[in-house]
Every structure is written in C-alpha cells, then in structure tokens.
C-alpha cells in the first residue's frame, strides 16, 4: 500500500491541489460576481430577476464542484487511462445537461410569469414558444452529448436539417397564417364586429379571430373560415360599424370627501340610537359608506361602521351581525337606512336592556361627509368611449356615479344605467349594470364587473349572437 502510494503520490497530489485551488478561487469569484450581479439586477427592478437568482444560487455551487473535479481529472498526470477519460466525459456531460436544464427552467419560468399578464391569443404563442424551446434544448443537448462522447454527429445534423425542412414545407401554410394572425391581432387590422369584403368575394361580419384563421358570418348565417394569410395578402374592404351616438354625452364627475366632526359621540347603545335619529343624512351616509371607501381595494366589508363599533367596542356580536347584514342596496333613500338601523337598535335595547358603556376614548364619533363634486375632462359620446374611460377613471368618480348618485342625489339608479337607458337607449345593458350590487364588491370589483358586462354586450352586439 505504502509502496503504491509512494509511486503514485504525484498523480494524486497534483489533481487534489488543482481541485482545491479551483474550488477556492471559483467560490471567491462567485461571491464577488453574485454581489455585483445582484446589485445590477436590483437597480433594474425587473421582476424576472428573482427567478434568475433563485435558479442560480444553489446550482452554481454544484457546477463549481463538477468543473473543479473535471479540471483536476484533465490535469492529472495519469496517461491514457480509460477510467480518466470516462470520468472526465461523465463530469462534463453532467455539467452541460444541468446547464441546459437550468437555462430551460429560467426561460420557462420567465415565460410563465409573463403569460399571467397577457391576453389569451398571445398566451397561445407563449405555449408554442415553450414547445419550441423544449425541442431546441433537446437537440442542443443531443449534439453536445455526441460531441463529448465522440459519436459522429453528421448523420444527426443531417437528420435535424431534413426534419426542419420537412416541417417547414408541411407547415408553410400554417406558418404564414401564424405570421399573418400576429399582424392582424397586433395591429388590429380587423376587429370583431367589422363587416369585411374580400377580393375573392367572401363577405360577412367578423365573429372570431384566431392565430391561424378568421371566422366571418355571412348574410345567410353561414360561418366562413378564412386563413389569415389570405386576409393580409388580398385586397380587403372593411366596413366598421360606427358606434351609436348618445343623445347626450356622459360627462364623468368626481367627488372628493371632507370629514366634518359633529362633536357628537356615543358611549353606549342608547346614546348611539338617539344620535342616529337626529343627525343629518350626511352623517348616516358617511358611516354607512366610509368603510367601503377607505377599504374598497381590500375586501367588501361590513356595510356600516355602527355595526363595527357595536361588535368590536361594545361586544354585542349578535347585534353587530344584524346591523352589518342590512342590505343598503335595498334602500333608495338615506332616511330609510336610518330608520332600519334605528329599528334594529331599538328592538335590541328593548328586549335586552343593554346598557354597557365603552371605555373612555373608544366612543363612537359622529362624522359628517362633505362631498365636493367636480367635473372631469372625460366625456363619453358612445359606448366604446364610455368603456375606454371606465377603465382608468378614478375610484372617486366611480364612487360618485354609483353610490352617491343613488342615495345622496335621490336618483333611482346609478348614473351609468340612467345614461345608458335614457341617452343611448341601451335598456338591457342599463338593467344588467343596475343588477350589480355595489355593496357586495370592492369599488375595483364593481369597475371590473361593469367593464366585463359592457364588453360582453359590445361583443354580442357585434357578432349578432
């Protein structure tokens, strides 16, 4: 044993030193480089940076180990050993396979991240891209494997080229349709609802646009499928239906709210009831809507602050539940809401003789809502403009047109339904919006609900379905 070691010590010592030196220097470079890369990525504020960092943090350490071992084996003074050759090939194969896997993982995770943010037609392209990526990774992997293990690659490359050529030849129509589809969707050459007439005599209303083809419905209600490449190559006449103009345009208003203290405060149920009966409407409105306004982006919450205080501060949970289950949407005036709240409180006080008072500093303070209403510069003359503005108008504006208009301005419905019904004569749509209970959603939820209702209506109108 000792003799063998004495004979081969140089062959063991040199690779070990190389291995250790490689690991130490590579880890140092990794430390410095990762610090630099992290700071650069932090500056970028690109969300994909976390994906890259997460996938590289651990694996780089293993790569260093593999490459260290590979360098040590390669530098080993042992000559023409089959074992040496085999080990070095295995190591470098493992390195390249893991490298390809990590690249694939990073790219697919980034694609997945963005696919959550894109619309369905583009999502399909993302999926196709992911499939293509798998093919590329496998092909490159095989080529590297062949190269490392010294297998002849010419046949494989010829096979790949032949495969690609055949695929392009067979799918040439689909590829040109895909490119045309991208152009049509991206540049919005035609839209759903457009009436189109092709040079080749097909004509009808566009009902569907996919990546490969477009469907139109003719006068005879026949569905005609046209490959996208034909649409971009032939002469095309588009008759875009002008949207119906409103008799009166809809001007968006906004409303900002000042809080005025009344100085009144209740410390028990009886005081709460007495003040509820006498405070102005603006106070009742404030306490039944402030929660929606302050927390509207988080969650649809208890309908009123009276319920919250009664439950959380006085500890009357059953009463709090009753108060918070009042359906504000049922009432058309603040007076009715006030009466309902007062009735519930009165019934509870009479049957329970409740007289618990809160601690000092936890009283219910009655606050008045002062609304300053201002017009914005946004005016809709038709449904498409209305939809467009609805997507970005402030939540204060939505609050005014939906909640405030109905209860404080004494209108029977929200402003949007009123305009749709009276100025655009779109009664069905007006009713559909009226059916949305704004007290069951957050304000942003109401916005999304109205947008999807109007979009669905426009689509059905365009396609005649």
């Amino acid at each position, binding site marked *: 044993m000792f003799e063998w070691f004495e004979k081969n010590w140089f062959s063991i010592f040199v690779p070990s030193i190389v291995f250790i030196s490689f690991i130490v220097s590579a880890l140092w470079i990794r430390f410095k480089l990762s610090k630099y890369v*992290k*700071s650069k990525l*932090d500056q970028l504020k690109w969300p994909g940076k976390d994906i890259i960092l997460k996938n590289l943090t651990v694996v780089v350490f293993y790569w260093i180990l593999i490459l260290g071992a590979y360098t040590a084996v390669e530098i080993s003074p042992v000559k023409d050993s089959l074992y040496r050759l085999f080990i070095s090939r295995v190591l470098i194969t493992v390195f390249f396979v893991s490298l390809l896997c990590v690249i694939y993982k990073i790219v697919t995770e980034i694609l997945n991240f963005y696919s959550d943010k894109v619309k369905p037609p583009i999502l399909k392209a993302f999926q196709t891209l992911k499939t293509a990526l798998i093919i590329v990774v496998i092909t490159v992997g095989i080529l590297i494997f062949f190269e490392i293990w010294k297998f002849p690659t010419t046949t494989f490359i010829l096979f790949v080229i032949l495969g690609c050529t055949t695929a392009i030849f067979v799918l040439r129509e689909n590829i040109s349709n895909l490119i045309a589809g991208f152009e049509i969707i991206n540049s919005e050459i035609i839209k759903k609802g457009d009436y189109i007439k092709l040079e080749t005599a097909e004509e009808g209303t566009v009902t569907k646009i996919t990546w490969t083809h477009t469907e139109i419905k003719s006068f005879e209600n026949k569905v005609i499928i046209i490959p996208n490449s034909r649409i971009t190559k032939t002469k095309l006449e588009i008759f875009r239906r002008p949207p119906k103009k409103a008799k009166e345009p809809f001007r968006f208003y*906004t409303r*900002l*709210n*000042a*809080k*005025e*203290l009344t*100085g009144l*405060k209740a410390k028990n149920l009886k005081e709460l009831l007495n003040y509820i009966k006498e405070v*102005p*409407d*603006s106070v009742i409105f404030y306490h039944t809507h402030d929660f929606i306004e*302050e*927390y509207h*982006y*988080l*969650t649809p*919450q208890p309908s009123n602050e009276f319920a919250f205080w009664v439950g*959380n501060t006085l500890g009357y949970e059953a009463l709090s539940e009753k108060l918070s289950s009042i359906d504000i949407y049922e009432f058309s005036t603040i007076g009715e809401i006030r009466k309902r709240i007062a009735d519930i409180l009165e019934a509870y006080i009479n049957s329970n003789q409740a007289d618990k008072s809160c601690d000092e*500093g*936890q*009283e219910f*303070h009655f*606050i*008045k*809502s*002062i*609304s*300053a*209403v*201002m017009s*914005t510069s946004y005016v809709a003359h038709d449904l498409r403009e209305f939809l467009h503005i609805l997507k*970005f*108008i*402030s939540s*204060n*504006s939505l609050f005014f047109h939906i909640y405030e208009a109905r209860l*404080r*301005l004494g209108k029977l419905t929200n402003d949007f339904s009123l305009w749709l019904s009276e100025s655009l004569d779109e009664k069905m749509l007006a009713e559909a919006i009226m059916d949305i209970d704004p007290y069951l959603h957050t304000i942003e939820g109401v916005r999304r609900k109205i947008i999807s209702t109007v979009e669905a209506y426009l689509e059905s109108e365009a396609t005649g379905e």
Partner: protein
Amino acid sequence: MNKSFILKPKLKDYEPIIGRSALEELKALADKLSGKRILNINSTYIGGGVAEILARMVPFMNELGIDARWSVIKGDNEFFNITKKFHNALHGKKEEFKDNEFEYFLEVNRRNSQELDLLSDIIFIHDPQPVALIQKRGHTGQKWLWRCHIDISNPDEKIWNFIKNYVEKYDAAVFSAPNFAKMLNIRMFLIYPSIDPLSNKNRELSREQINAVLDKYGIDKKKPIILQVSRFDYLKDPVGVIKAFEMVRKNIPCQLILAGGTATDDPESDKVLAEVKEVAWKNPDIHILLLPPDSDIEINALQRAATVIIQKSLKEGFGLTVTEALWKGKPVVASAVGGILLQIKHKITGLLCHSVEGAAYAIKTLLTNPEYAKRLGENGHVHVRQNFLITRHLKDYLLLFLCQYYKEELIYL
C-alpha cells in the same frame, strides 16, 4: 447616496405611487382655489412634525398654482417656555402658571400680528403658539382656520379654556383624530396626519443599505426580527414588549430590537431606558438601540429588515410609527389605543392586542404563518397608500379651504 433619493420631490414624483387620476384631482381642486391667497403660520421653520409637513405642503400648493405662503411667529425663550408648558398642559400634564405668563403670551402674539402681513384670504394657524393672532382678524371675507396637531382630549381645563376663547373666534378648527377633539361652537374638520413616501424615513432602500445598518448594530440577519420603534417612555411599554418577546422566544428563535431616542424634555426617559436595559440584561437576542434624532435612514432600514413590527403603546397619539411600518408592507401587532385604531383594522391590515399575552400570541401567529403575515402587510401598505400619504393630506387641506366658502354638504364646484 442612493440615486433614487429625491431631495425636494415634485408632485409628479408621486405619480407612480398614487396614480395619474389622483394627481389630476389635486390639480382640479387647486384650480378652484385660484386667486385665493393662503398664509400658513406656525412657530418654527425647522424641527418638529408641523414644520416638516409645511416644508413639503407649501411648495406642493405653489406647484399646483396656489398662492400659498408660510410665516413663523417670533418669540424669545420666555415665550417658548410658556408655550411648552401650554403644550404639556393641553396634553393633560399639570403645570403651574403665573398670571403674567398669560399676559406675556398674548403680548408676543399681539406684537407678531402687527409685524406679520395678514392680508391673505385664508389664514391657517398651526398649533397653540400663534392661536391669539386671531385678535387681528382683518376684512370680513377673510377665513381663519386653526389646525390642532396635538391630542387635546384630556387637557388641563384652565389652559384649555384660555385657548378656547381664541379658538372659537376662528371659522373652523382641524383635528387629527375624532377623539383628539373638544366640543367647540365652530365647524370642526377631521384631517388625518400623513407620511411622505419619498422621505428618508420611508423611501425604498437597497438590500446593501439595509444590511449595512444591521451590520452596524450587530443584528443577526438570519434570525427573525421583532421591532418596536419608539422613544423610551412608559407609555410605549417597552418592558411589556420584552415580556411578550420572552414568551415568543420560548417557542420560536427570534430577536428583539427596541429602537428609539430619549426625549430631551422628559426626565423620565433616562429612567425608562435604564429599566429596560436592566430587564434585557444578559439576553443577547435583545438589542436596545438608542438612536440620535437624525437616524431616519437607520429607522427605515430596521423597519424594512423586521419580520414583525410591534407598537405596544399604553396610550398613543396618532401613531405615525405604525403608519411607517404599514407602508413598508410589514405585518404589525399594535395596541388597540388612540389613532392606531384608525390604521389597523384587526385581521385586515394588522393584528390588535390588549395585553402582553395578546401581543405574544399575535407575534407567534405572524411568525409561524408567513403567508398570512404577508397578506396583512400587503393590505397595510395599500391602506396607507390610500389614506395616509402626504398627497391625501394635501387634498384634504385644499378641500378644507374650499369648504370655508360653502355651507352645504354637497358642494358643486
């Protein structure tokens, strides 16, 4: 220095935070005030929350096209010693006053009212020091507003009655929370305080900046951090926080940071600090950091590094440290007192507690349920963005000014 730091932010710098529509609404409101001259008056240009807010607010108003100015009253040490006693007495502390002190207070106010140019349309007086300037009230159309930045719910009645005589000559008074107010026979408005998301205390920090602060104070980066930022005061219950922490540490390895300063005008402060040090003695997981007054970036970094932020006050004003913690998206455990209740809705934007045991349980819940903690933190951040940023404060001031010209509850501008 981080390049993202903006020395004097313009309103457009806030657009990525509050959105375009909020800025448009500010502009629209400001247009309605066109032609009105607004004069803010307080007692100092430097130091303190009021000066800090005005230093931002007045340039913002100017940027919106409003003719807003800011002046301060002049006074000697004697005057400011008297107003300091007023301040303490309005907070409920017993103070002895001599009759000539009231006289001197009025005399300084009278002198200032002669020196100051008070010809503006709206005179906005901040805090009690310049409250008696109202004696010089000018033309009839002029609006005088008194902004009370302090909690006067339990004042020394003698002082309050003295101040009240002048306050009730104003057109309106403004308070920071409903229970900070006193019943007055003039209009009273509620305007919450705010934080500035672009200030050193709240702006984004890089990982390197945060780590540098943790290294500076020898904080373990791997152990969860529980943090309370507040001055060393019995009302902030630092000993209670340590007790809660000890309960948590029995089950979960973590560390506690108590960071804050001592108030120079509070002799009890050093005593509290000594007591806290004694309780925390020999526990390597408790870090007591006595920070100098200009430690905004350090506090920001500690808050951003914390796993859970606690505010276990026995009594609290508005609690802007809670606002700052929420803004940083951190899960917060706080006592159900004072202005904290306006910021934390239990289980929506944070967890409320009423005892040491309650605080410990809430911290444990957050440490063992990081997803839940993350959700509360995110909600808290959005809640502050919506309700407690300086831009909302600006909007409220503009609305307040406009409200002075209308008596209705529904104003069409």
